[in-house]
């Protein structure tokens, strides 16, 4: 791997683009949801204003060291996911710090932020945060199962744990995408994505009219701005992860933006028309159909 300053700066630029795209996507999605309801919705630039405002708040208080570290862990989880995944296929400067086993590291980083948040939120002393985080961790454990099965199926299919190779194998036409070459794994993975994106029906971590508003109940001012930054990054990166695995990756920034938008749009679309599951229903659901499909996908990939 290349550890030069130049490489680092390129990655930083990529992160900057992804962050702003994340904010823009967030406000766009809110506008899309608003249009469904017959409203206009937030201005396009609202997330940036919110960020500036949160940082500009004068008072803040702390609940201890872990309370500080929680959002930082969460942000590290998001940035880590970004850094170890190639952005564009076949591009040297936009390949970030991807290496041959990056897919495994990525699965780890997915849960890293959640664990950090768990520590920070439970230190904040709010019972709603504790309930939210226990829901979040149990749901995440359930989401990980079909997710990992889908990844294993793809890894067996392509005989590699490297993103670059998986993305390269899908180039050269829409029919080479995993969603066509390995539909079972794709279905399991996309269903798991609904859970990973935390949109309704799987947004019970932040369920506003049950436990307002879950883990970040006590977070405010700069702490919240860190969480907001992270959620902007992580939504793009999660979408990019599924884009890379199932939709052939992107070879230009334009394709990157288009594809992440549509992948993210799937979860927003589902969220708009479905109510929220209870946690036991949610866990049961993930361990039923997506897991079954995932197991079949692995068996098919291994023994076909």
């Amino acid at each position: 791997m290349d550890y030069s300053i130049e490489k680092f700066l390129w990655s930083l630029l990529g992160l900057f683009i992804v962050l702003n795209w994340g904010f823009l996507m967030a406000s766009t999605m809110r506008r899309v949801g608003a249009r469904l309801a017959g409203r206009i919705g937030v201005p396009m630039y609202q997330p940036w204003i919110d960020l500036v405002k949160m940082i500009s708040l004068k008072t803040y208080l702390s609940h201890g060291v872990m309370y500080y570290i929680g959002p930082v862990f969460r942000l590290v989880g998001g940035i880590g996911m970004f850094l170890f995944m190639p952005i564009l296929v076949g591009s040297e400067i936009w390949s970030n710090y991807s290496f041959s086993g990056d897919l495994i590291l990525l699965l780890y980083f997915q849960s890293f932020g959640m664990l950090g948040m768990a520590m920070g939120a439970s230190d904040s002393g709010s019972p709603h945060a504790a309930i939210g985080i226990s829901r979040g961790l149990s749901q995440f454990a359930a989401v990980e199962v079909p997710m990992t099965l889908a990844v294993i199926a793809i890894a067996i299919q392509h005989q590699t744990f490297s993103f670059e190779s998986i993305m390269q194998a899908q180039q050269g036409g829409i029919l080479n995408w995993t969603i066509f070459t390995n539909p079972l794994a794709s279905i399991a993975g996309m269903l798991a994505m609904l859970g990973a994106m935390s949109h309704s029906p799987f947004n019970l971590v932040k369920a506003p009219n049950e436990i307002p508003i879950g883990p970040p109940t006590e977070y405010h001012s700069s702490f919240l701005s860190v969480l907001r930054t992270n959620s902007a990054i992580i939504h793009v990166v999660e979408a990019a992860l599924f884009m890379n695995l199932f939709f052939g990756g992107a070879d230009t920034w334009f394709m990157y933006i288009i594809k992440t938008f549509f992948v993210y749009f799937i979860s927003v679309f589902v969220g708009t028309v479905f109510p929220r599951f209870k946690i036991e229903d949610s866990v049961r659901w993930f361990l039923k159909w997506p897991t079954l499909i995932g197991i079949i996908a692995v068996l098919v990939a291994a023994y076909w």
Partner: protein
Amino acid sequence: MEEEKKDKFLAPENEIRQVAAPDGSIIEVNPLEDYFTQDRPKPYKVRKGPVEDFLNWARAESLWVLGFGTGCGSIEIPPLVTPRFDMFRFGIQMRATPRQSNVFVISGYLSVKTLKRAIRAYEQMPSPKYIVGLGSCTINGGMYYDSYNTINRLDHYLPVDAYIAGCMPRPEALLHGFEGLKKIIKAGKGHKANEYIENLDWYKANQKKIIKDWNMPDYNW
């Protein structure tokens, strides 16, 4: 006499009690002193200049309203998030927790019991924070000027940035009130939270005059 009165309204979970520590020793816990900080808040420094102007603009364009319907005016707040009025257009959003909100809309009359909760919620909000008094009841008691359970003047208990008159004000009036609040903030005058802290003793005396069962710390951080 003072002692007796205090005990009468003390909630059971706030009573002084004996607790066994993990090592087996018995310690005495006074929840009001041990579990809550007794620190007094300090006023923040109000700066001037172009940077502050920009920050004020951001504060004005991103008003996060605490979702706490304190009185009957709260019936006109849900329409604000629906197609006809849609306050998201103006950067106004509802938040479920006081920690993340900056604007507290006191929607209508405040009974003494709710005032106690409103004070707690207000003090938990990060500054700069703003209060919008909605309806005549917050101005002078309105319809309920002679009721023994509703306050007459909100500004004796909490610092109010803007009043919206009417019983009840229409959603358009609310939007207009928010526009007015934005003007105040952009002009750099939205620092009533500081005023509250500077005159904390006066406010607390007023609050304690009507909240007889003051079983909480003086300032709810």
